[in-house]
Each structure stands twice: as C-alpha cells, then as structure tokens.
C-alpha cells in the first residue's frame, strides 16, 4: 500500500518570495510521483510528474520538484511566487506497473500568496 504525507496544511508567503511545499511518501513498490494544483472552484490540473530519469522535474508556471529516493520525498519549489499561485497543491503517487493507474493523494497544502 502507498501513502502520501504533505507536511504543511497551509503555507503563507509574500509575493516574489521563494516557496517549498513538502511531500513525503511511503511505498513498498516503485511509484510515479505527481503534483497537481487546484484553483478555487476548479478541478485538478497537473503541474508536473516524475516517471523516471532526471530527479529534477520542471513543470508549468515555473514550478519544479526534486525526487529524492533515499528520503522518499518529492518537494515542490518555486523561486518567486505570484499572487496567481494562490491555490491548493496536492502531491500524489501511483504504483508503477499497476494496471488501474489509481492515484493516492496527500491532504493538500494551501498556498496563500500575499502582496
């Protein structure tokens, strides 16, 4: 079984400051890793994903994440945030080779960017 822990439920930050949203996972098998963003009253949109290869993954809107296998982490970073980045961010995993492709989500981190 897999599980995902997002260590911070809320992260307030000022505009143009850097941000890191933390994600740790637990799994007895290899997994794919994802970050999704949910803007108010909208569905989830894929920010980035790690399938294999380089451990530093770049996504949309200037976000990037680094896969650390030894620490079972997949933290999301952005060097300079904008007001428009205010949203809820979800980390998720799915089992490699699992035919269903089912995603296991964390509880989400609400990023609040203040002017």
């Amino acid at each position, binding site marked *: 079984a897999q599980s*995902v822990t997002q260590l911070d*439920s809320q992260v307030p930050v000022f505009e143009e400051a850097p941000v890191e949203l933390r994600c740790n996972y637990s799994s007895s098998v290899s997994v*794919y890793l*994802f970050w*999704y963003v949910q803007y108010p*009253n*909208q*569905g*989830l*949109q*894929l920010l980035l*994903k790690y*399938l294999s290869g380089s451990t530093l993954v770049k996504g949309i809107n200037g976000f990037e994440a680094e896969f650390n296998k030894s620490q079972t982490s997949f933290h999301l970073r952005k060097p300079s945030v904008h007001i428009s980045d205010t949203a809820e961010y*979800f980390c998720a995993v*799915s089992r*490699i*080779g*699992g*035919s*269903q*492709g*089912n*995603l*296991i*989500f*964390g*509880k*989400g981190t609400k990023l609040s960017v203040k002017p």
Partner: protein
Amino acid sequence: EADIYQTPRYLVIGTGKKITLECSQTMGHDKMYWYQQDPGMELHLIHYSYGVNSTEKGDLSSESTVSRIRTEHFPLTLESARPSHTSQYLCASMPGLSTDTQYFGPGTRLTVL
C-alpha cells in the same frame, strides 16, 4: 488541454432525492475515475472503470453507483441522498495504455440538506 466535463457544477438537494452526477470526456480515454473530496482531506477514489461495461469500487466505500455504457460517459448515481453525501465529487480520465497522467474535470459540489 483535457476535455472532461462535469454537470452540474453545484447541486443543493433535499434528503431522500435521487441524483445523478454527469461526467463526460471527448478524448476517447478508456479509464475513468470518481473521487470524493472533503475540505482539508485527501481525495479518495470511490469508483473506477477500465472501459465500457467495466466498473470497480475504489478505496473508499461509497453508497453511490456508477455505470459505463459508453466510453465517453461515466455517470455517478445516489439513489437516496443524505447529508453525509455532502462533498465535492471529481471525475478523471486516462488513456487505456497509460498508467500515469489523469485528467480531471472541474468537479461537482453537492450539498444535501
């Protein structure tokens, strides 16, 4: 950009009513999913489908039922709505040969009074 639609976006209904939440996608994806999302909680998988006439229950037990008669539609039905069903319901789809990216619809926010 993924084309996956959910209707209605918002629904307020009384206890005991039968409701159907619609989900449709125009991408020809074989795999479709329903998630339940409560505030401050993880999204939980309640139903999924590999293709036409295939439906399976997810990790979270749900009183809802689903059907998959056509590839593009995956409706979710509650025969008798209760206040405990109040939640946001998100539909997603994924190509049949893929095991990675799911594409999500905008969600239906259901309130049962």
